[in-house]
């Protein structure tokens, strides 16, 4: 028990609202806003257009300041929104059931793997090494203390080969995790890989589960996980109307085949009928599953990403099928336009030849760092350094192009890339 208030460095007095406003404005000034014309950063987080209705509607106090919808009568609004969210995630992924969100993509993937281990009772986990390095790192942490073998499948030319999958699957394999578009932006052959896994020899009639790590924007245009044989689909929901906000809070998407429903982690909203025959919604299956299953629980998630799920719901409703398809195809065409122009520059070429969605790796004639530093002077963020991210060499740049970039923005990027090698020869 303390006799007096704590001594907190840099905080002796309470700050008035005006002071706090000043301080936060000044701290914001010390950040560069990536989300603007010159942003070509990707690697898991993307600068997509967010319709004003998303902020407007999700920002309502009735949603922001509401509690978890345990008490159904007091929470029909949130419950219905989450029910709509789940339905949308099902339609996005082509799977049967979806939960009301988990934290973000990496923990979603870890939860999916834990679920696969539980469902199959096996202990080998196959993970493509074309998966985002953060996600692979999280998987290593999650599986570290369990009696599980985590095996990374090597890529050839930036993609996984179905042969590799076939060779790696054995009787003891619980699941195969494939990301597409993968960390290099390349589109993987989910159908081939999952088919290979499903056809692998099995002892207990439980073939390895196919876990697809998807990008929800790509689902607006490309084949969906469910169409390609995935049993579980997990993904990062950030592109769906959620600002990048320095990495979080984002949104873990989680969907699965109907047969797996009872093993799904997280909250699930169901539809029901009241005494007067009117539709209503409530949390189902587990409501705080941990209370019931305790030490036998397979997941511990409680607080999820409700408000972000709401944003995604509003985003998808605003876009609709045609809007989402347009977002996805503009991403595709603009990225390909940028790639073609860059590949035509002296000294630059594309690192991989495979089909890609809205992100690609470029070999540069200079270190990627030099390009990035040059970009800072012109307020262009030309991409990510593949060596720093742990997915390539010093001279490789990972470039993402979303629908928000105009032809002029792309021209400015190309111009930057063209100048950097020359400028480096002239000492400033």
């Amino acid at each position, binding site marked *: 028990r303390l006799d007096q208030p*704590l001594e907190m460095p840099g905080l002796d007095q309470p700050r008035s609202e005006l002071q706090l406003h000043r301080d936060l404005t000044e701290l914001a000034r010390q950040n560069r806003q990536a989300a603007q014309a010159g942003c070509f950063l990707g690697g898991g987080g993307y600068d997509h257009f967010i319709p004003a209705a998303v902020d407007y509607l999700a920002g309502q106090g009735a949603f922001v300041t509401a509690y978890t919808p345990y008490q159904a009568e007091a929470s029909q609004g949130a419950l219905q929104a989450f029910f709509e969210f789940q339905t949308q995630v099902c339609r996005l992924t082509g799977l049967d059931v979806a939960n009301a969100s988990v*934290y973000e993509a990496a923990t979603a993937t870890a939860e999916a793997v834990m679920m696969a281990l539980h469902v199959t009772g096996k202990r080998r986990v196959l993970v493509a090494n074309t998966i985002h390095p953060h996600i692979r790192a999280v998987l290593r942490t999650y599986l570290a203390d369990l009696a599980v073998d985590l095996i990374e499948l090597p890529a050839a030319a930036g993609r996984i080969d179905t042969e590799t999958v076939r060779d790696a699957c054995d009787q003891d394999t619980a699941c195969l995790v494939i990301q597409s578009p993968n960390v290099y932006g390349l589109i993987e052959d989910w159908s081939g890989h999952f088919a290979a896994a499903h056809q692998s020899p099995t002892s207990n009639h439980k073939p390895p589960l196919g876990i697809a790590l998807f990008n929800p924007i790509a689902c607006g245009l490309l084949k969906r996980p469910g169409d390609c044989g995935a049993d579980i689909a997990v993904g990062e929901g950030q592109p769906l109307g959620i600002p990048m906000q*320095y990495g979080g809070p984002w949104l873990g998407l989680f969907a699965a085949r109907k047969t797996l429903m009872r093993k799904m982690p997280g909250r699930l909203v169901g539809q029901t009928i009241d005494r007067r025959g009117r539709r209503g919604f409530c949390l189902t299956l587990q409501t705080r599953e941990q209370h019931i299953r305790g030490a036998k629980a397979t997941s*511990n998630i409680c607080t999820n990403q409700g408000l972000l799920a709401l944003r995604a719901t509003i985003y998808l409703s605003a876009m609709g099928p045609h809007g989402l398809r347009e977002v996805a195809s503009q991403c595709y065409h603009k990225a390909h336009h940028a790639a073609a122009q860059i590949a035509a520059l002296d000294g630059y070429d594309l690192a991989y030849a495979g089909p890609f969605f809205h992100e690609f790796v470029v070999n540069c004639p200079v270190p990627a760092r030099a390009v990035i530093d040059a970009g800072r002077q012109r307020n262009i963020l030309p991409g990510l350094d593949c060596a720093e991210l742990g997915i390539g060499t010093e001279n490789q740049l990972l470039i993402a192009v979303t629908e928000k970039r105009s032809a002029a923005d792309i021209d400015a990027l190309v111009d930057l890339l063209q100048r950097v090698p020359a400028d480096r020869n002239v000492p400033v």
Partner: protein
Amino acid sequence: MHQSPTNADFPLIFERGAPGARATDLPPLDVPKADLPDDLVADAPLALPEVGQLDLVRHYTHLAARNFSVDANFYPLGSCTMKFNPPLNEAAAALPRFTGMHPLQDDRDAQGILKILYQLRIWLATIAGLDEVSLQPCAGAHGEFTALKVIRAYFHDPDAANQPQRRKVLTPDTAHGTNPASCAMCGADVVTVPSKDGLVDLDALRKLVDDETAAMMITNPNTAGLFDHTITDIAKILHDAGALLYLDGANMNAIIGVCRPGDFGVDIMHYNTHKTFSTPHGCGGPGAGPIAVRQFLAPYLPVPQVEKRATGQASYKAATGGRGLPEYFLDHDRPKSIGRVRSFVGQSGVLLRCWAYIAALGPQGLRSVAQNAVLNANYLAARLRHRYATPYFDPDTSRFCAHEFVTVPKDLLDKGVTLIDIAKRLVDYRIHPPTMHWPVHDCL
């Protein structure tokens, strides 16, 4: 004034609008089209809603109107402390130079947010009375998980504890369900410790602690709203046996600034920023679950860690010119770390609001939050105790509660009234009902 609603009054978003309707649009494509192989493309468009902007706005405005919230209603919840969410924090978090930040931006371009995260790290350590903090975990349960990983790494470290046999984690029978669930996820063996009079039964505890015990997880003030004054005895029992004491910080609201977990023997703990530090609950999330640890556990904290370069080494001013190292940075180089527990930097947008809440209160303000919460809860318990039994509350024998209390409405139950009836009647009065049947049966 209201009609009784029918399904048609509350359609799903899928049941609104008309084919072809859209609530937003993009400029026409301004680059040439690239080749798009047919076999990559989905066969049919997705079955998403097709609504105009007015339908969209009306729909989610109507849903909002059918939801309780702190802005409109009182929530007498304990552990899940529902705090007022200051509009300033929402406005600041919405500044484009916060929301528009990519997580892999250069540290030099992120000095503002990194400073916030670093200061928050230091403040949370100070409030805990512990040495280092990781801001990585996404929520309380994720904090528990991360902490258990840290504990395990410590016991497995040949240069440190080197006692890999310690696989047992004790939890009281009043523990929140996430505690054993987190243990299970980490492969630990969960052992339940019985309670006596709402507190941990010390004799039982002594019998259960042994050289295979890694730690005990305890919530204090506990889920029955009682501050367990034997906490230092509990710590001693564990420490004597070489085990650690973990605090589930869900109820920190009742003690922040008044006493420090580090002072009563806690080695490691988590916070729930969405409970203790007023980050909005958002219909169930997002939250953040920073963990605080003693120095000997610090090497195992997850990466990245936000760090500050000693002044003189490099100042921010020099850094912005691109000629030096930035003052604040993300450190990935922690060889003993348990690794990553999530992608990127953490729940930055949540942590920013947490920083603002603490900064607004200052040290003295934090202290009065706890003092007021305890005072108000005891006031309410005292007013209710003649009609509703308060098993753990009796001012005549100086048994007070912390910031929440348990009540068993025995008289009413005997008359056939159920807890659900009480809950629904509270909803009638636009008060959110408290947690029911937990931690003891037939309680509120």
